[in-house]
């Protein structure tokens, strides 16, 4: 028979068998047809209806075979849906074990279909899933279990929302590895928040089955599930027995991680729950301190303190760059003044070093109106995180006795207060700022309100506080363009990520009522912030806003897409943004849409250069600048050569604001990179200087270049853009801050919000007393790759700490000693005292080029020595791309509580030789303790460091009296 089949030229004969009366003949025909479908499907498909009729004939014994033949024919025709349904009808005849392309294709299709149907069920529509389809998928699962391909089961079960299967897979394979896989790589990719929650719950459940559960992972899940009570329970359980130091330490570690990854609201609730739980139990002294420490960590005070310490100790700002820029920029022009303000603010962000301002009092005094506002607010960026001294620092600028004398600097001070307390708004600060909203009346009130609103927004970011939002709404309703704008922004910040129905409704209604474009623009941004991370839940609103005729409301839709899908890489969102980027009639919308791509793809930066390559050459300058920013945001800190290759030509663009955008984007990308790692850095830096020094360059380009100089060396060269936390979680305040920063385009003061997106890159390890011990981790790569970029004054690279303190103390002494000296003399004194070699070095190396050469010669000499693994000390810089080379040294005294990789952020270590005297790193920050404590004579700083590093004296901006 087989021979006959091979020589067959047509299936016509076999097909005619189907018309026979005899069942036996029909069966024979079908059986033969089944064998030749591959060759004669074109012919058989003409008679497919006959075969279908046979299948539908209930009395036909071999109807399943008919279904199989029909299924194969439909498969050949490319009708996979029909092929699948007939294959399901074929029952046992359809064998999963066969490895033909037919079976593979049908099974793949079955799984796709199943996933799709489950997805529809999930969204509420009642679709019945064919039992047989389910059976096929079940059989697939079984096969995977047999062959131990758990990874596949995990993937399919999550997509198909089959949590029961997921649970089974998790418990049957290598559970810990699978749990980590799901948590790290799968959860964030789930598009539906609902399912995400279910999966997280399941993870917690599985975790808790262990005898020694991984509490860190659990707490991370719980923070995402937003269940502070359970977290508090676990933490309480861990610290319940104070004698078990291991557990206490891991509780500390969890608390540090929670502070880095969870929202402000969440940690606050955890603290209150913890404290209430404590009150029930009897008072135990040691437990009390533990708990106090725990809540301090959760509140973020400890992290901030450590970061401040780190940033201050390692500050590597190159003052020469700043001084030069300051000289070149015409300070009488407001935009130029702003530029230098930003450059200074970013360079010193979080370092508390405000020498530049002290040294350039005259320059400072030239600021007028809003430039003064920005300049004052810059203090907030510089002292970011210094929550203990916030009020004291700003005392000179805050209005006295509720009467306003100079509204711009006072408004700026309010804003600065908010920035200092960003995301850590204490009761005192928020109530003070709220009061400020209502206290001041009169013609200057709106400037003060503007500052207070922005401050309140920064301090209360993501807190979801009803009280604050009420206060802000009432300011918004006063319908003043200046204060209303800030109120709308602040409202968005306070309610960030909450998707609060009433707030959104109010904002939308008011956006249509008001006539002030500024307010509508701010509301659009605010709505975007409120939708942060809500993914599909924001779709309805986005649809509605996209329909609007008012371009500013469409802008709101773009912001909402950007924020709702931030970091998800969601294809639908990308498609939408790309469509808007090329089709919208309004430039603002197009620019924002392209910029939004950067936010959405920030976890997969390698995709962005290809995506925006064409857009970066658009005829429309707004699209060009948008693509530059998208690259900057997504590739921040990566030094991606592809991105740099696109951006470099843009520095020569004919349109000034494109040059500005490209400069800033390059600064983001090349942050913390040195020439050994990315040779382009030097050229880009030189280019900035060139733009600033070109006499006839547009002032906007100069502004961009100056700001970029600040960004590329931000935080004393010790911070990076951290839109994700060290653990890889999306950081809401950082993303919000970055979005607000991009709005400097329309309102300069918003540039300061970049401070929220900066993350110190430090190796910080603390012991049980939350003090940093002297210890090291080893790095197995070439040291040169991670060195600080060479700077003009710096002669010795190896001893940074000493220099930093020396400069500061001398300055302080010199200041105290000769108060009357002019600023210029002071600088000279400080510089000579600190680095005597500087002058001669400068003489022999006339230009920047020579410096590079000398530097490289030196490194060449040293290279042989540094190729060996080297130690990275506690409280020093640890670059993100350095982490993969890092290891905790074996057999050292301190062992990290959380095993595994060395990561940025705070690590808690266990002392293996408890009882022996510890060598602690002394605090370099003079004003480590509160004023009151210092008065009480128990200053830790004084005890820790014998050097006379007293607090710098307060100084006041020499703003003249002003009439606003």
């Amino acid at each position: 028979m087989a021979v006959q089949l091979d020589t067959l030229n047509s299936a016509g004969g076999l097909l005619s068998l189907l018309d026979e009366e005899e069942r036996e003949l029909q069966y024979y025909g079908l059986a033969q047809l089944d064998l030749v479908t591959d060759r004669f499907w074109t012919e058989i498909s003409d008679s497919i209806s006959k075969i279908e009729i046979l299948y539908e004939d209930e009395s036909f014994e071999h109807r399943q075979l008919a279904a199989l033949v029909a299924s194969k024919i439909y498969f050949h025709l490319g009708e996979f849906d029909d092929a699948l349904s007939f294959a399901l009808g074929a029952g046992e005849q359809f064998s999963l074990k066969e490895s033909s392309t037919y079976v593979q294709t049908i099974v793949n299709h079955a799984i796709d279909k199943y996933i799709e149907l489950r997805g529809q069920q999930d969204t509420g529509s009642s679709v019945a899933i064919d039992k047989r389809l389910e059976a096929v998928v079940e059989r697939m699962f079984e096969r995977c279990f047999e062959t131990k391909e758990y990874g596949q089961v995990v993937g399919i079960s999550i997509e198909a929302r089959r949590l029961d299967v997921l649970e089974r897979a998790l418990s049957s394979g290598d559970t810990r590895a699978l749990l980590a896989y799901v948590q790290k790589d799968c959860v964030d990719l789930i598009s539906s928040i609902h399912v995400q929650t279910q999966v997280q719950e399941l993870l917690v459940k599985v975790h808790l089955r262990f005898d020694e559960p991984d509490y860190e992972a659990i707490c991370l899940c719980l923070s995402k599930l937003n269940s502070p009570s359970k977290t508090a329970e676990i933490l309480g359980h861990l610290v319940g027995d104070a004698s078990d130091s291991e557990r206490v330490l891991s509780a500390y570690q969890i608390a540090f991680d929670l502070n880095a990854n969870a929202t402000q609201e969440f940690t606050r609730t955890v603290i209150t729950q913890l404290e209430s739980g404590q009150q029930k139990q009897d008072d135990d002294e040691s437990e009390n301190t533990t708990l106090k420490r725990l809540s301090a960590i959760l509140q973020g005070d400890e992290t901030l303190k450590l970061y401040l310490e780190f940033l201050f100790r390692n500050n590597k700002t190159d003052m020469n760059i700043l001084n030069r820029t300051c000289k070149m920029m015409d300070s009488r022009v407001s935009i130029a003044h702003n530029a230098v303000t930003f450059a200074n603010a970013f360079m010193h962000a979080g370092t508390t070093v405000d020498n530049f301002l002290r040294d350039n009092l005259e320059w400072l005094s030239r600021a007028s109106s809003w430039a003064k506002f920005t300049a004052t607010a810059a203090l907030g960026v510089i002292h970011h995180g210094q929550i203990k001294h916030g009020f004291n620092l700003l005392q000179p600028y805050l209005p006295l006795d509720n009467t306003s004398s100079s509204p711009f600097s006072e408004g700026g001070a309010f804003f600065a207060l908010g920035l200092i307390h960003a995301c850590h708004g204490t009761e005192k600060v928020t109530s003070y700022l709220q009061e400020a909203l209502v206290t001041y009346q009169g013609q200057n009130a709106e400037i003060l309100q503007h500052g207070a609103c922005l401050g309140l927004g920064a301090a209360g970011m993501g807190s979801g506080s009803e009280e604050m939002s009420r206060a802000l709404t009432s300011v918004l309703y006063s319908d003043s363009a200046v204060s209303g704008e800030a109120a709308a922004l602040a409202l968005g910040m306070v309610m960030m990520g909450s998707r609060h129905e009433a707030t959104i409704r109010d904002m939308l209604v008011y956006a249509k009522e008001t006539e002030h474009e500024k307010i509508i623009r701010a509301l659009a941004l605010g709505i975007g912030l409120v939708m942060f991370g809500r993914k599909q839940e924001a779709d309805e609103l986005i649809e509605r806003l996209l329909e609007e005729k008012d371009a500013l409301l469409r802008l709101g839709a773009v912001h909402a897409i950007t924020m709702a899908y931030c970091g998800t890489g969601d294809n639908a969102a990308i498609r939408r943004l790309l469509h808007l980027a090329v089709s919208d009639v309004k430039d603002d919308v197009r620019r924002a849409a392209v910029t939004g791509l950067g936010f959405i793809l920030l976890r997969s930066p390698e995709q962005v250069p290809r995506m925006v390559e064409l857009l970066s050459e658009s005829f429309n300058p707004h699209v060009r600048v948008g693509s530059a920013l998208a690259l900057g945001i997504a590739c921040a800190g990566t030094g991606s050569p592809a991105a740099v290759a696109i951006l470099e030509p843009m520095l020569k663009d004919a349109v000034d604001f494109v040059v500005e955008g490209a400069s800033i984007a390059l600064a983001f990308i090349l942050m913390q990179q040195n020439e050994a790692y990315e040779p382009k850095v030097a050229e880009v830096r030189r280019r900035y200087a060139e733009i600033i020094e070109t006499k006839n360059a547009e002032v906007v380009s100069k502004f961009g270049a100056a700001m970029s100089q600040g960004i590329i060396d931000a935080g004393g060269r010790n911070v990076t853009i951290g839109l994700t936390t060290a653990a890889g979680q999306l950081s809401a305040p950082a993303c919000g801050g970055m979005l607000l920063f991009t709005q400097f385009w329309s309102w300069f003061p918003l540039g300061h919000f970049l401070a929220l997106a900066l993350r110190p890159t430090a190796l910080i390890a603390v012991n049980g007393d939350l003090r940093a011990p002297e210890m090291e981790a080893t790095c197995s790569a070439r040291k040169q790759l991670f060195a600080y970029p060479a700077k003009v004054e710096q002669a010795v690279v190896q001893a940074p700490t000493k220099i930093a303190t020396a400069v500061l103390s001398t300055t302080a002494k010199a200041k105290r000693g000769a108060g009357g000296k002019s600023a210029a003399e002071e600088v000279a004194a400080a510089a000579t005292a600190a680095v005597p070699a500087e002058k001669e070095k400068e003489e022999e190396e006339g230009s920047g080029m020579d410096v590079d050469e000398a530097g490289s010669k030196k490194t060449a000499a040293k290279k042989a020595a540094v190729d060996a693994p080297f130690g990275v000390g506690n409280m020093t810089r640890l670059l993100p791309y350095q982490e993969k080379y890092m290891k905790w040294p074996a057999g050292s005294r301190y062992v990290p509580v959380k095993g595994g990789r060395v990561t940025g952020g705070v690590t808690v270590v266990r002392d293996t030789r408890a009882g022996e005297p510890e060598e602690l790193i002394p605090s370099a920050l003079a004003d480590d303790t509160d004023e009151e404590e210092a008065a009480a004579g128990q200053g830790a700083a004084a005890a820790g460091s014998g050097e006379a590093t007293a607090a710098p004296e307060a100084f006041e901006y020499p703003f003249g009296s002003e009439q606003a």
Partner: protein
Amino acid sequence: MTFPLGGVVFKLASTLSDGDIEPFYVYTSVQTVDITRNVKFLERGIAASEIHYIHRALRAVSALRKRLQPDVLGEVIATYSASTNQQVVSDCLKSILESVGQHTGASAASAKVCEPEVAMYFGLLAQLLLLDGNEYERGAQLSNVLVAMVSSTQRRTLDPVASRVFFYYSRFFEVVDRLSDARSSLMNALQTATLTSMKETKAMLLTLLLRNYMHYKLYDQAERLAAKTSFPADAPNNLLARYLYYMGRIEAIQLNYSQAQLHLLEATRKAPLNATTAGFQQTVHKVCVIVDLLMGNIPERSLFRIPILRKPLQPYFELTQAVRVGDLSQFQEVVHRYQDKFLQDQVLVLVQRLRHNVIKAGIRSISVAYSRISLRDICLKLHLDSEEDAEYIVAKAIRDGVIDATIDHEKGFVKSAEIHNVYATSDPQHAFDKRITFCLNLYNESVKSMRYPGGDHRKELAYADEAIKREREFAQELENEDFDDDVDGDAMDEDL
């Protein structure tokens, strides 16, 4: 300097022998380099997953073919080895070497890793060697191995190479006259190519299958296959031309003349009219002429004057003349004279269908010439058997809309209706529309097939830079002039 005589002779001999060897040596070494250069293109294409590099390598194949030597190919293959996890590739390399009669020496340690595409490329060269050496059986065997490898390796970059391998696979089976054996594996390959969206291979397989069916005159099967599959839109032109030709043939046989004419016409236009494509052009035009005649049109005289077409189309030219005049006897005579030729061209069936058209053409010319003519005269003019026959034929022609006339049965004559003005109708409009659409499609297709090399425009940036600089200088000059004009004003501004 004096040399002993012997030394001189020796020297001469050595130079001579050098001279003898050298051309051969140069000849082969150039080829090794040629092959490796093409392989480099392949590897670049694989690395960048850019198909056009691979096409570039394949374009050189026809040039290589003429000078290819088995030992050179063996030499090149020996420098490659399959990576450990690809058993298929190493098997394939081995059978390539065996088939071209080279030793399968142990590959050197420094051997480069052989990608499946590269192995397939070597296979293609080996196929050509065997085909040119008339070693068809071995060629068929090797082809089987290669085809098996294609189905087991599914990579998009394999597409262009695989499509050519399939072509020669089918070719081997055709020359040994076992085409039907290849059919089922071609069918399977088509399925795989469709599922993995290997477009070029799919296009190739479709044309090969159509050819396969037509070889056995299975027009029904061929038509069904064409109806149930879709030809990939972005297939290479040569494949498209072939596909269109086969479609035209099938449709002509199945009486769908207008569609057939459209496809054949397009086929002639897709293929360039030059010496390389002469064979194809001749074949297509033969069918095209007959289909034209069957449609009732008379092909342009100029067509038969084209140099490459003139001789082969001579019988068709005479046939056309017979049809044009409507002379049945002349027609019969031509058909009889060239019967063998038509049979060879596989168009005899179509030619025999032309008899009707000859009569129709006659009737039409009569109806144009005479406003009234008796049936008897028609009978005489067309050499028909009887007046009754003539009456039937005219009636049929009227019904088919060939002529616009009425028959007076009583008095036995045909009366033509007034000829109306075609230009008053919308016919010209339709004709123009058809042509315009054709032109527009052609334009769109050529725009689509253009390639823009990436990054080329960056060179212009340098110029743009200069332009900006000039502009800036110009602005500066202007500013300076301003400054000269109102120094006082500026000074005042500064004070403020």
